[in-house]
């Protein structure tokens, strides 16, 4: 129970900060023979930047050691006559490089990101800054958390509703309590729906939690309106619950229910719904296949509403598809549901 509530928080924080593709907290050390005002000015710019953590001034002979031990990822080496050279540059005269960046390139991503950041911080090379501006239309700071939030939502609700519902219903079959429950005047359909209620409640709490986290911790704009996101998510919850019910009607053991959930839902949801790989890049076959995955439609719609600021009306297509899928799942599982043992 606690774990179920914790998973979304952990995932949100993990994807939001730790596993982001943007690079944060790059440790940078500085070698500067003369700590003049101009040098301190440049160092101050770097130190005040969110992406960098200023490690401190070090000596020339420590560069290799610090980089090797991983204490710093970048070392900025200032030229000994930095002030004079800078003057030459501003005067338009040719000059040797004034700062040398020594970068730990064992992680290529971090390395190239650091260089890009540094170039944008430091004076000059304006063309690179322009490039950033044009590329990041909905995500000017390149915050990867934005992209992950809809994906996490699509994943979590499948996880909680479908997998846990199916496993908990199948558990009754496995333990044998279903046998006793069936030999009672209570209609089995009622029992099954009663079993869904806690998971529905948990999911609603998780939904609220994710929205709060997304808004206050990750600064996701949600300009499309929270109610639209909320109502579409409720629809997705029902869909996941009915999917769980469907799985529970066709399996007899918890292991089977888990396996089916994992194979039929988790893997496709992860790989084919656009959480990790953009659907546009899929080969034709997989692109078609992704159409039958509910999470794909949900994630697409949430993305539109959360990040692009679309209203609920703008995602009517996704909404209709989800509604149709829910109807089919409920219909099939009620038809397959058996109030006998076989």
């Amino acid at each position: 129970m606690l774990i179920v509530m914790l998973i979304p928080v952990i995932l949100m924080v993990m994807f939001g900060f730790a596993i982001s593709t943007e690079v944060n907290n790059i440790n940078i050390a500085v070698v500067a023979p003369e700590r003049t005002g101009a040098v301190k000015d440049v160092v101050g710019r770097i130190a005040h930047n969110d992406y960098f953590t200023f490690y401190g001034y070090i000596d020339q002979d420590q560069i290799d050691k610090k980089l090797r031990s991983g204490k710093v990822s970048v070392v900025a080496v200032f030229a000994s006559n930095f002030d004079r050279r800078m003057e030459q540059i501003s005067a338009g005269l040719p000059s040797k490089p004034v700062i040398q960046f020594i970068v730990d390139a064992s992680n290529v991503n971090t390395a190239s990101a650091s260089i890009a950041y540094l170039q944008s911080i430091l004076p000059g090379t304006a063309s690179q800054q322009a490039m950033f501006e044009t590329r990041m239309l909905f995500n000017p700071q390149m915050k990867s958390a934005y992209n992950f939030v809809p994906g996490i939502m699509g994943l979590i609700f499948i996880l909680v509703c479908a997998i846990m519902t199916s496993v908990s219903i199948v558990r009754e079959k496995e333990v044998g309590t279903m046998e006793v429950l069936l030999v009672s005047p209570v209609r089995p359909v009622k029992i099954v729906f009663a079993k869904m209620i806690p998971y529905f409640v948990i999911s609603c709490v998780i939904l609220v939690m994710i929205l709060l986290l997304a808004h206050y911790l990750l600064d996701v704009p949600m300009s499309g309106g929270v109610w639209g996101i909320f109502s579409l998510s409720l629809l997705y919850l029902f869909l996941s619950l009915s999917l769980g019910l469907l799985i529970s009607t066709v399996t007899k053991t918890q292991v089977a229910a888990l396996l089916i959930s994992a194979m039929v839902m988790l893997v496709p949801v992860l790989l084919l719904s656009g959480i990790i790989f953009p659907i546009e890049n899929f080969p034709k076959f997989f692109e078609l296949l992704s159409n039958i995955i509910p999470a794909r439609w949900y994630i697409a719609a949430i993305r539109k509403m959360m990040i692009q600021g679309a209203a609920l009306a703008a995602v009517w297509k996704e909404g209709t598809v989800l509604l149709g899928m829910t109807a089919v799942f409920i219909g099939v599982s009620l038809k397959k549901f058996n109030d006998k043992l076989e």
Partner: protein
Amino acid sequence: MDVIEVSGLSKSFGKVKALDSVSFSVKRGELFGLIGPDGAGKTTLFRLLTTLLNPGTGTASIDGLDIIKDYLKIRSRVGYMPGRFSLYPDLTVEENLIFFASLFGVKVEDSYDLVAPIYKQIEPFRTRQAGKLSGGMKQKLALSCALIHHPSVLFLDEPTTGIDAVSRGELWDMLQKLKEKGITILVSTPYMDEASLCDRIALCNEGRILGIDSPQGIVEKFNLKLYAIRADNMFTLLEAARQVEGVAECYPFGQTHHLIADEKFDIHRFTEQLEALSNLTIKPTKPAIEDVFIKLMKQ
């Protein structure tokens, strides 16, 4: 009309015939035993009668209600205790009882008179998780839960399997008391010695009923000469006795071997032939239900 009426009931699972045209009936207030080894089809029969399974062929009715058509009505008036412990192990004793009461829409207090004699024995443990009870106590709790809604028919699938001798005795005492209250009880057991505690029994094996009668009636049908034999080395005795002419059957039976004799059997010749075995004794004995069962099974 009898409370339980079964006629020509069959059920197959794939190629396995679990029940093969079984017919019998149980009168109101009767304690009826299904006696047979594992795989005799007892559990399948219970599941058919409690409407958990649909029969292949044949019909059956409980309280005049058909097990296929009126299965929902049957479910509210029978009590069922499956062979496997089927309560919630993570709920306490008390919670289980309350849960099953609410499942049937009754209050624990309303049925307390019926449940009390059994429930009193486990009441000291009412805050303990059901999964942590001993085998005997689990069965007592299961029986309490099965009785909570005043069922008119009680189905008990091997209630005494896997529990100690004292608890077994107690459980059978409870069944006698429930019978006195007018509840019809169908109980199955693999233990032959429990058969004599029933009003009537059906001996079953491999999906068929071999014979139905009162325990005494069943025994009286045994019309062969039966001897109990002993020797120091029981295994050699068994092997040797089977070779002797006139021995139709010889099988282990508790502390002794039972020997079924045919017309050619001569007790003197038997002792002469097995002289080599030390401390050989042979004496006529009365048949038990197990003897009848073995005889019927061979036929």
